[in-house]
């Protein structure tokens, strides 16, 4: 029998999943991603013998971009909506801690993302089959890494939504951090081209979420095997960074005055 705390978290997660699948924006984004993937079939025809690569490239990029948009916009609104609709107050009057509520919200959206990523993955494999190409299982490693990055984005969105005074601000902060994290190698090499001291660029490099870690697209597209060690390190990085972010979110949410 599950512990009462765990069952409360699962209940919030299930509710969040139900709620997020009702979001119209979600369907639009997934549909757009699938349309983008299938449009690669047309683009592939215009290239010289690059149809398979274009389907894979565009498919993975679509999962990455649209997954990030879902994580960002749905993630930022998760807690804010509950506060604005005042539906949070009766929930917190029940035997449900803010930490349990937060983790439940995170798990709920993570599951929503998992379902969406799975749908988009089916879209990519479908497009490959339509192009007369086999379903390349190497892509799954890249998609797994993308999913880890999306979980990080959800964590950041939750963190900023508990911290920021408005949804716009939370969206901007999360977006900025996600973009900065994608430029982590540029941040690290900053001291080579600017007068930024080395310690500052190094600190920023380790502080920012390193989204480059989650980019295995080139390896997957070229059928290069990814070592289990690397996958384990990436997973460990996501887990560690995520636990820090969720802890920060919990602290901010715990201290937040709900009036």
């Amino acid at each position: 029998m599950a512990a009462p705390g765990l069952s409360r978290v699962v209940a919030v997660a299930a509710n969040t999943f139900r709620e997020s699948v009702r979001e119209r924006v979600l369907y639009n984004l997934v549909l757009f991603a699938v349309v983008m993937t299938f449009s690669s079939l047309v683009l592939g025809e215009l290239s010289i013998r690059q149809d398979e690569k274009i389907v894979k490239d565009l498919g993975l990029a679509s999962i990455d971009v649209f997954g990030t948009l879902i994580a960002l916009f749905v993630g930022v609104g998760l807690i804010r909506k509950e506060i604005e609709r005042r539906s949070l107050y009766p929930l917190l009057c029940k035997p449900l801690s803010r930490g349990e509520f937060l983790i439940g919200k995170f798990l709920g959206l993570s599951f929503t993302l998992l379902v969406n990523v799975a749908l988009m993955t089916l879209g990519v494999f479908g497009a490959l089959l339509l192009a007369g190409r086999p379903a390349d299982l190497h892509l799954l490693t890249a998609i797994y890494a993308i999913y880890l990055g999306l979980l990080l984005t959800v964590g950041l969105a939750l963190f900023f939504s508990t911290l920021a005074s408005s949804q716009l601000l939370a969206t901007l902060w999360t977006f900025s951090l996600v973009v900065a994290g994608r430029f982590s190698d540029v941040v690290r090499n900053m001291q080579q081209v600017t007068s930024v001291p080395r310690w500052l660029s190094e600190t920023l490099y380790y502080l920012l979420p390193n989204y480059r870690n989650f980019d295995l697209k080139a390896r997957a597209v070229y059928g290069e095997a990814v070592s289990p060690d690397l996958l384990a390190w990436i997973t460990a990085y996501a887990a560690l960074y995520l636990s820090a972010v969720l802890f920060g979110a919990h602290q901010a949410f715990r201290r937040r005055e709900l009036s």
Partner: protein
Amino acid sequence: MRRLLALLLVPITAAVVYVQRRIDAELAGFAARERLLFADSPDRLRQLVPGFELVLADIYWLRTVQYYGSESLFNAEPRYDELRTLIEITTTLDPRLELAYRYGAVFLSEGFPIGAGQPEAGKEILEKGVRANPDSWRLRWDLGAHWFFFMKNPKQAADVLRQARKHVPSAPFWLESLAARFLEGDDRSSAREIWRHQYETGEGVIRENALYNLQVLDALDIRDAYRAAIARFRAAHGRPPESLGELAQAGYVRDAAPRDPTGAPFVYDAADGRVKMARTSRLWRSKYE
């Protein structure tokens, strides 16, 4: 009211198309370069799209193919000013995109107006490909063929092929024998060998191009055989034959109406006593006159 609005949509759509065409006409040429390249520094562009380099490489490759196709097929006076930059951007964004090096080098090196007529640029693109993909024997093979055909340097071509055999375990054994043939100096036999391998191992346009060149070599062999027969006839009779029929009747050749591999008949010019490829033949080029 709703029907009226729906009816209005038709002229509005037509007007939008018309106005867009006028704008395109106004901007033709002026904004072409800007639209095509976006940015002409490949490295800077790569830094702008972390995580999405492959997709952007695909887009630039499509642009390269379209640019080359539109210039070579539809432009009476083709210009290939942006071709090199487009290929550079594509291969910088995705250094493993072998086809971009291979086709890009062909687009750049083929003689004008079919290509840009820049064999040196084509060689540099292939060398960049070899540096980025040292384990690809195909790129080294293309570079060797490039040295042979476009740079007219069989010694360097042989050297590249031997390097391929030495450094790439998967490189096929025939690269070694081909390198030896380059050094023997029989250009047509070496060329035939190269195109045969291109035909057997290549796909798509590369395979079609190899087939074309093999047919050209066959046609040149037939032409040269007739020219040699005419030379013998001339030596025996003190004049060239009046027709290829006379040449055949005299027993110098079997066929009085030879055809090239595409089925086009050869042309005999009795005035100068030379057999030539027909200008209507798909294989004809002025250099084969």
